């Protein structure tokens, strides 16, 4: 019970907020057990109570948090209206991601999409709003903002997947198909190796069709990397961005965030053997 920031309130307001929280929890417990068709329960496990208080805190936080003279239940209602809007946005985004996904996918990516669909279908904004898709295993090469919870976390993944769809869509279909055929079956997120190969192709200045590497590409890239400077990789990154010609800002920002992560790997492999392991051939 240490999430609702009441300590900053004057003592009287603290007492009032705590009384409101207590009354609210009584209602929330009733509503939760009714929602789950559990019948009436006067008590709940302490862990669930902590989760429900955290949910209240998260939802009230969306509506501006606690303040002297502010009714907690009213703030919760306002927060839930915001959550409902975000939930609708996430559902729309999920449909968009599904509709724009290329026909080649990694298994992990399909599973991630299915997981998010189930998460959204079961999301409980009234009682456990802070719960995000915690069981989701889908590595995204851009860092997840710290402290995001609940629906925001789901939206982060959906936004990343939608951007990835646009990146994959920017690659000619035949080249993408060939790339996926050669991609190891246990690849989690296909976008990182795709951008790695794209960056390699930009170093070779050969275009991204075909996207996969040949032994000759490896030999040539080995020679380029042996004499490369930091600027060589920067130029290649800019060239790749031009080739992909991404139309929206979030997609460009995604590529700009990923490429600096890839360049040390590519820059660190200045011999042909290492590069063969790095690029999909």
């Amino acid at each position, binding site marked *: *019970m240490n*999430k609702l920031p009441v300590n900053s309130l004057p003592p009287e307001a603290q007492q009032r907020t705590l009384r409101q929280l*207590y009354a609210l929890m009584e209602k929330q417990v009733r509503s939760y*057990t009714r929602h789950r068709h559990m*019948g009436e*329960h*006067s*008590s*709940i*496990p302490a862990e669930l109570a902590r989760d429900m208080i955290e949910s209240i805190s998260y939802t009230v936080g969306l509506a501006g948090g606690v303040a002297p003279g502010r009714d907690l239940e009213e703030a919760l209602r306002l927060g839930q209206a915001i959550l409902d809007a975000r939930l609708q946005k996430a559902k729309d985004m999920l449909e968009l991601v599904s509709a724009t996904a290329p026909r080649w996918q990694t298994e992990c990516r399909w599973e991630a999409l299915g997981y998010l669909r189930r998460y959204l279908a079961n999301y409980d904004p009234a009682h456990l709003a802070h719960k995000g898709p915690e069981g989701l295993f889908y590595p995204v090469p851009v860092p997840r903002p710290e402290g995001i919870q609940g629906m925001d976390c789901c939206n982060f993944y959906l936004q990343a997947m939608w951007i990835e769809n646009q990146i994959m869509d920017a690659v000619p279909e035949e080249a993408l198909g060939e790339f996926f055929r050669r991609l190891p079956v246990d690849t989690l997120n296909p976008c990182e190796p795709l951008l790695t190969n794209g960056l390699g192709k930009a170093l070779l200045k050969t275009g991204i069709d075909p996207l996969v590497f040949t032994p000759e590409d490896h030999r040539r890239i080995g020679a380029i990397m042996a004499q490369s400077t930091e600027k060589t990789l920067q130029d290649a990154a800019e060239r790749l961005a031009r080739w992909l010609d991404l139309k929206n800002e979030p997609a460009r920002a995604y590529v700009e965030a990923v490429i600096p992560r890839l360049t040390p790997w590519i820059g660190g492999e200045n011999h042909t053997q290492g590069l063969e392991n790095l690029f999909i051939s």
Partner: protein
Amino acid sequence: MNDLPIRQMQICAAKDEIRSLNTLNQRYGLTLTEADISELVELRGEALRSTGRVEFGGGILPKLIRAFCKSPYVDRYNYAATLGDLQDAFYYFKNESEDRFSDDELIEFMEKVFNGTAHGASEVLTTISLEELCRWARNGFDDRYADEEAFW
């Protein structure tokens, strides 16, 4: 957040609700003194802590009082002690059942066993397992299990 005020609120809410039931139970000759109420509420706190549960509002005691005050085995001499045992047993069964039974279902099982097989011995309810409670509530006590029950 300091959860002490929450605990105080729980105690006040529980005491108020139990007190209000005294009027109802006087017709059965059952009354809880202020000392009884305080002790029961304190025991409730201990039972909740030991079972890792949290309760809001008046808690389970008012429901137990309503269900058991009509029992022929409850009188003014054993009223408070019986409620203490029943409360302990209730939280134990609640946890054991992982909340699969609602309050009313669990109380119904306990009432059947208390007024049936246990003949009003509340300590029976504090020593049997959830499985036994369910079995006995459904079928009554089965002699085949008599040897397994140490208290019997």
